[in-house]
């Protein structure tokens, strides 16, 4: 109903206030924000938050089911699972965050340069981007970790590489739009240096969709990392990570120790879910163009 839209747009309140009000109205997403804050805080303060030393076996309670002493039970060696999950969360968030941030920076720079300069540089960047996108992301990450080995850094690189194309495309598209716009043209004739045009005009347009993209990418990154580790391609003992802990728990399924595979997996589900919900809400709020995709 065009009429209603016209009317609704007639009197917009202050942008920031409106943004907060709408985010808060979407209760699920607002809850997701709190959940993420709690997870991040727990990971950051792991040594103080975790009830036990994650590597300290409790000889009296190997394979203890969830109870008052060990809320989420213990593993074969009697290590407290809650403490292990909290500590493992550091690795998950660190690698997923590092991969996402690295991909964001690299992708944004490549996209901006390719879009601004155009010509052969643009061609090379875009063809490389297309080639990477021709692979299903997880399969490519698998291949890369296989090729370069699975240290923490390498796993982050493998996950990051699969993410770079989405940022390149996003920023390049925005760059091309900005370049077409008159005000960029005007700024150039006045004699502004190139870099300033880019920063002043491009960034404000790019940041909202980049934030959305990065939030959603965090979810994918955690899932990819977990799956790689589950297969033995990602994080390996003695380092802990949720996917790798699930894999350890899987071998105890036949003994009926369900808590060992259930809870690390649940940690993944909750975290990914929170990132996805928040990303969706941000997308609706910040970038109406992408709505419903």
């Amino acid at each position, binding site marked *: 109903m065009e009429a209603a839209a016209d009317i609704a747009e007639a009197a917009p309140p202050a942008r920031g206030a409106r943004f907060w009000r709408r985010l808060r109205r979407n209760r699920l997403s607002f809850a997701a924000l709190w959940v993420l804050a709690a997870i991040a805080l727990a990971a950051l303060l792991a040594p103080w938050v975790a009830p036990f030393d994650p590597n300290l076996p409790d000889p009296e309670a190997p394979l203890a089911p969830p109870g008052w002493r060990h809320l989420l039970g213990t593993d074969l060696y009697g290590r407290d699972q809650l403490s292990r999950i909290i500590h493992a969360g550091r690795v998950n968030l660190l690698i997923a965050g590092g991969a996402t941030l690295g991909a964001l920076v690299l992708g944004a720079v490549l996209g901006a340069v390719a879009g601004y300069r155009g010509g052969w540089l643009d061609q090379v960047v875009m*063809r*490389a981007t*297309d*080639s*990477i996108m*021709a*692979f*299903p*992301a*997880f*399969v*490519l990450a*698998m*291949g*890369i970790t*296989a*090729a*370069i*080995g699975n240290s923490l850094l390498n796993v982050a690189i493998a996950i990051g590489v699969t993410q770079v194309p989405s940022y390149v495309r996003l920023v390049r598209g925005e760059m091309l739009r900005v370049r077409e716009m008159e005000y960029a043209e005007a700024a150039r004739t006045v004699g502004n240096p190139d870099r300033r045009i880019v920063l002043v005009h491009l960034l404000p347009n790019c940041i909202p969709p980049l934030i959305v993209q990065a939030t959603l990418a965090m*979810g994918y990154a955690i*899932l990819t990392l*977990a*799956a790689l580790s*589950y*297969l*033995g*391609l990602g994080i390996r003992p003695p380092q802990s990570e949720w*996917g790798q802990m*699930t*894999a350890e*728990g*899987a071998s105890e*399924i*036949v003994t*009926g120790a*369900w808590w060992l*595979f*259930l809870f690390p*997996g649940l940690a*993944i*589900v909750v975290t*990914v*879910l929170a990132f*996805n*919900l928040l990303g*969706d809400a941000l997308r609706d709020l910040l970038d109406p163009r992408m709505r*419903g*995709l």
Partner: protein
Amino acid sequence: MGFGGFLLRRLALTVPTLFGVTVVGFLLAYMLPGNPALVKAGPFATPDFVAEVERQMGLDQPLPVQYLRYLGALLQGDLGLSSSTGRPVLADFAQRLPATLELTLAALLIAIGIGVPLGVLSAIHRDTLLDHAGRVLSVAGVAMPSFWTGLLLIYVFFYLLDLAPAPLGRLAPGLQPPAAVTGLYVVDSALAGDWPALRSALQHLALPAATLGIAVMAPVARMVRATMLETLQSDFVKAAWGAGLPPRRVIYGDALRNALIPVVTILGVVFGFLMAGNAVVESVFAWPGIGNYAVTSLMTKDAGPIQSFVLFVALMYVVVNLAVDLLYGLIDPRIRLG
């Protein structure tokens, strides 16, 4: 421009993509640990002989030359040797492909069979309890790692309820696989009238297919809901309501027909999901497909299968996306008739 022009343009677009895919595949193969010459020469070869084999294989040549050799071998279907089975990777692939195909098709069936109606109902009954439930389901479906879903199903249906067989392969031990026609046990055993085998094949297929299906169903339902909502708000649907057509006609005749056209495009993405999921789900259920083959060869530091798997999946991905675009062109009169 008619469909012919569209076809040509789309085919031309595939060429640079294929080039890119083979370059990435080559780089991966080049960086992979393990010396293929060593594999070919055998474990007891002298260093001199290994060097000789290296020269024969062109491993001393500059990178572009090596790439051309790689491409040449690829065109002849030569994917190298597997150091663990000692056989050509291509032969190993051919042997395991039907298992992967069976799992993939079953999962696709589940994903589309549930995802499409779920998305449609969600959109029609927008903001009702059904819609909220459907959305929670599809959001959660995306967030669940497939290995975890698989373990959950195994724990419940195998360990607790004893309804499913042990997650080990495609048939109960002791049963002979049916005579190969399609390579899909379910189809072949039905064709052969081998009912015990059919029963066992279905039982073994159920959990892995459900695991993979759940992972893929979520994005399908989400996409269908989004396009359906958009279509329901389009001018021509409003016009159909305004013309007094009954809801059934408007929803299925006007809206769904249009909404499903963009949904075809995500079949490509779905296929990517399925392929990625395959590697994981096949490992969880010891399903003897190519994903499992690639993962196990990683454990033994066998470079051939893993890089072939990556390349193979990417090539399939390109082909599937091409097919999807052509299908799109065929069903949308705006493209078909130009």
